[in-house]
């Protein structure tokens, strides 16, 4: 009996010590959220860690919705999101005592992608809506071969999905034959390997697939910036309160306004702030 009491005491002491050690670590930045903004956050983290090697920056990509939840639950320092925070999330943050401050880090366009062998070149927004609501179900209705369209969408966790739903679908329900995947990279991989597939991703994920013109406009950084491309959106990083000037968190989040940060954003494939 005395032996087990001693063991329990030791285990508890170790646990408390570990908790104290990990909790208030000023040299750690935890980033969580969108799979679209993920590449930007990772590039920023790599560049910033190169200048400050003792800093520990972890970047996770579990979806914009998850990022907001993590910020509200104080599980992350920066929430990357490819859509603005919903009113319900802002209310939940207020209830938890969290003040979400919005920083725009880049602009992005949602490109409609198809397999490189697909002959389609341009679609209108109404046609895209028809494909995703199931009204148009075969490529021959768009002038292509007699092959059923494989519709690929992001799952409902995603900011890209929410933006697509607002700007293209006009809140209409998607066809129940749509396949759902978990990240922008996964959509790109599906479309790259399936000749009959169509999907939507951010501008950084266009390698290996063909991007269609929407309403006659090609999705490029220039058309996104001058708003001629119809499906464009800002990308955000949310923090709890405004970070103090001079802290690592402040420098990390404001990198998008510095020349080096803008170069990194352009290199990743998105549109830097002007």
């Amino acid at each position, binding site marked *: 009996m005395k032996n087990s009491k001693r063991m329990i005491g030791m285990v508890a002491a170790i646990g408390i010590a570990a908790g104290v050690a990990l909790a208030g670590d000023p040299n750690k930045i935890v980033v969580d959220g969108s799979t679209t903004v993920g590449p930007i956050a990772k590039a920023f983290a790599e560049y910033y860690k190169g200048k400050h090697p003792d800093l520990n920056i972890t970047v996770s990509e579990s979806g914009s919705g998850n990022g907001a939840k993590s910020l509200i639950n104080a599980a992350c320092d920066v929430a990357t999101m490819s859509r603005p925070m919903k009113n319900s999330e802002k209310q939940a943050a207020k*209830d938890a005592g969290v003040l979400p401050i919005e920083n725009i880090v880049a602009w992005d366009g949602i490109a409609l992608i198809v397999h490189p062998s697909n002959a389609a070149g341009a679609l209108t927004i109404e046609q895209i809506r028809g494909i995703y609501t199931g009204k148009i179900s075969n490529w021959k209705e768009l002038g292509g071969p007699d092959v059923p369209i494989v519709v690929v969408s992001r799952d409902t966790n995603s900011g890209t999905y929410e933006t697509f739903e607002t700007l293209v679908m006009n809140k209409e329900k998607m066809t129940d034959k749509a*396949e*759902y995947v978990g990240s922008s990279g996964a959509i790109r991989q599906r479309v790259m*390997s399936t000749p009959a597939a169509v999907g939507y991703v951010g501008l950084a994920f266009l390698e290996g697939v063909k991007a269609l013109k929407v309403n006659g406009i090609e999705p490029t950084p220039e058309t996104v910036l001058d708003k001629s491309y119809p499906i464009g959106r800002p990308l955000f990083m949310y923090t709890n309160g405004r970070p103090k000037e001079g802290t690592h968190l402040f420098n990390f989040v404001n990198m998008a306004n510095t020349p080096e940060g803008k170069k990194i954003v352009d290199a990743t494939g998105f549109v830097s702030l002007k």
Partner: protein
Amino acid sequence: MERALTERDAGRPAVPSLLLSHAARRRQRLATAVGQAFLLSVTSLSVFAVLFIFYFIAKDAIPFFQLQGFREFFTSAHWYPSAAAHPEFGALAIFAGSGLVTLGAIVVAVPLGIAAAICLSDVLPFSTRQIVKPVIEILAAIPSVAYGFFALVVFAPLLQERGGSLLSVAVWIIGAPVAILAILVAGDLATDKLDDRHRTAFRWILSAVLGMAALYGLWAAGNAAGAIRISSGTNALNVSIILGLMALPTVVSVSEDALQAAGRELREGSYALGATRAETVMLTVLPAASSGILAAVILGVMRAIGETMVVWMASGNSAHLPVPWYNFLEPVRTLTATIAGDMGEADHVTGSARYHVLFAMALSLLVFSFVCNLCSEWIVKRARRKAGR
């Protein structure tokens, strides 16, 4: 001797008392009780864990049924939980998806698994068995996300590019041995009543005719399968095959244990009566081990229906009822993938019904597993009672 006794009886205690004093006895009883209580609490920890999980899942699942009722959840196939205006929570298509991939996994795992178990217990020599059994059990050690990655990155594009030829190869691989077996058995049965002189010739003629018919049938089926174009490789077929591979080690291990438990005496008695090995296995050993094999199949079912990573990555996650119901070439959505995929967006504050519906699905999975477990226990108990043990 008497003198020694008398001297001993003169007051000096020669042998210490073998009985404990009252205090010592009480201490010993206390120590026994404490030890037993400790072991009991450790054992009941696992029971409490299960009850805990059941209670908390049920607690969060009941509000969904209070908000939305039972009918839509179990009978509607429209799954739109995130629609802002009119969210719909019809999970029939998701239940159908889970059922379809489980059925496919069983079709893959059970024949292969039972055949492998019979091979391991009755056919292979002991030294070979010692090598083959660990190899089969390695299949169980591969992480499920590795299976899912393989299904998504290798198997899905393979099905899309060469789906037709893969299906026709499968038709031949499954059809040819079945056809050969059928022809042999049919020849045997048909020529049983003839006398020896005519039997051989008749058998040859019958086998030739049936063989031609079987070849033609297989060729036609192979061509029909080869003409199928699979438009999306992330479908129920993909997931069924992978789930069948994952459930295979479970089915093989438990079936083989059941076959071994049938006992040497049973087999020796059957051989002594002049039965061939095939007759012994099919007519004596398999029926004796049938309850254990049924339990193995139920364990395989539980493994297949609870698998999450593979179905989330490679089943397509499309919540619609396949048309017709047995069309394995369409993408499906399962309960486990829905819970894993929708978990992030279903916030407690922002979307009440959306949060609780995931618990309702988890409760359905739990109830199904419990029912499976109870069935398997009941089958084993009933067989044991029939065998008189």
